[in-house]
């Protein structure tokens, strides 16, 4: 029987590492890495991924000029008043849009909640209500799968430039999102209180107000506040298609290559988003 040292020498000569140190999943890892690369290649081609254009002198110089003009940001009184007005408009568009969205979302989500079905208390849900609920779910899906920017594009075409199209766009998309998530929240909780209320003869709205809503109110409010924050972000962006607010201001400044204006708008924008973020976080913390 050979000594232990010669044995280790023998094994290291044959295998690169001690069996315990060898990666047991080496082949799989290599396979996945290679297939990942094979997938990345066509994606890079499709998205024209050419990082070197960033460093071409033709692209770099105007970019540097533009960014160089960021300092100092424009801060004369006239521009600041304009900025303030557009900032308020952005917030107002988000708030009004969300308020309209709630008007649509609350009834739709109540219609689609399965917990509030009377027929499903005794076995399967009846045919009519089940079809209606599914239909409402599809409607909510359609409402939220059209992005607000597309709605805004459409409404700008119909109503003309201005905040009306922005408010409508936010209202439609957010009603889809809110309605779906409200329904999900209401269905995810414990349904026992609600169903026993309904079993004992209360109406569905009564069961909702006394059984389902108190249980989920905090979560519903917290989600609404979060969506308000999102709505502020998207209403700022909607201006890029002509729906008023900060986005429209930024779009026009950018088209004139006015770096100083773009810089102050960006700063206000970040401050606004940060403020909305803080506020919604504080509110949600209080709620939970």
């Amino acid at each position, binding site marked *: 029987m050979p000594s232990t040292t010669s044995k280790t020498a023998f094994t290291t000569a044959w295998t690169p590492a001690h069996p315990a140190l060898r990666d047991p999943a080496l082949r799989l890892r290599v396979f996945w890495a290679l297939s990942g690369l094979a997938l990345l290649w066509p994606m890079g081609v499709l*998205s024209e991924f050419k990082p070197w254009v960033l460093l071409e002198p033709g692209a770099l110089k105007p970019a540097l000029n533009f960014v160089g003009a960021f300092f100092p940001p424009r801060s004369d009184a006239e521009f600041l008043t304009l900025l303030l007005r557009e900032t308020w408009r952005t917030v107002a568009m988000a708030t009004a849009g969300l308020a309209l969205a709630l008007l649509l979302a609350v009834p739709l989500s109540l219609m689609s909640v399965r917990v509030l079905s009377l027929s499903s208390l005794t076995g399967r849900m009846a045919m009519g209500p089940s079809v209606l609920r599914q239909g409402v779910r599809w409607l909510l899906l359609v409402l939220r799968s059209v992005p607000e920017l597309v709605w805004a594009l459409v409404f700008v075409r119909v109503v003309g430039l201005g905040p009306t199209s922005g408010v409508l766009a936010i209202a439609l998309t957010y009603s889809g999102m809110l309605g779906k998530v409200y329904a999900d929240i209401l269905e995810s909780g414990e349904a026992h209180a609600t169903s026993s209320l309904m079993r004992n003869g209360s109406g569905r709205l009564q069961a909702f107000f006394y059984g389902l809503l108190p249980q989920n109110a905090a979560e519903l409010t917290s989600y609404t506040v979060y969506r308000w924050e999102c709505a502020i972000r998207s209403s700022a962006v909607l201006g890029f298609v002509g729906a008023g607010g900060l986005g429209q201001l930024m779009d026009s400044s950018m088209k004139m290559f006015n770096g100083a204006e773009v810089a102050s708008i960006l700063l206000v924008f970040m401050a606004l988003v940060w403020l909305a973020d803080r506020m919604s976080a504080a509110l949600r913390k209080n709620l939970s």
Partner: protein
Amino acid sequence: MYPNTGRDSYQLPPKLFDARCKACWLTVGVLMLVVASFATLNLQWAQFWSWDALQRMGRFVGELLHPEASTRFTGKVLHAALETLAMSALGTLLAALLGLALALPAARAHVHDPAHWRGVTRLALNALRSTPELVWAALLLIVVGLGPFAGTLALGLHTTGVLGRLFAESVENAAPGPPFALRLRGVGEARVFLYATLPQVLPQLLSYTLYRWENNIRAAAVLGVVGAGGLGQMLAFHMGLFQMGETSTVLLAMLVLVALVDALSYAMRTVLSR
């Protein structure tokens, strides 16, 4: 035995408005905000519900009902859809890598970690995050020109901010035991991260990344409206030329893409949570 039981269960309902009740003030504030918003916005409902606007809307919808379905055009739309997917995937991948790189200095690895760069990195992540993709795209168009590359970078930059913050938070929230055990034995920080922290948080990082990818597909579809490639660029182009048939096809493609992503993620979630 239970002296308070009776009193507790037969309390009077709270007053409707109480000056010391924070929620009441909050509700009043929210209502005032809503009223002020509607009052100052100068919304043109009259114009929106006018016969003229309704007619225009009707005509618009009517024209949308005839999508352009020639093979050549659907081929182009398919290409744009693939472009959108590629943009979102590459942007998310870039963001995951950059986000992880920035999450490490932004996280306090252990209690005695001085984390000198934490504040600065968090500020940078917040700046990246609070600028929406569309604004990034509009800014980047000046640098890299029209096309999907600007969109990819824009998605990447915004998502870096989002993912970086989430990653930093999950690194900070990882169970401190295993890293502590390694650190106690004199293992370097890099190895502590690779062998104790990363294995704990990797599933969470992956699920965050997948979730953001899903969001980014939706974002990439519309990003093109400012000229950053994908379906959005086609939409803005054809809508600008009033070619409603083409617009309708592009819109349909967008809807299908988003619905597919939704359905897929829902299916994956149900499979994974089973």
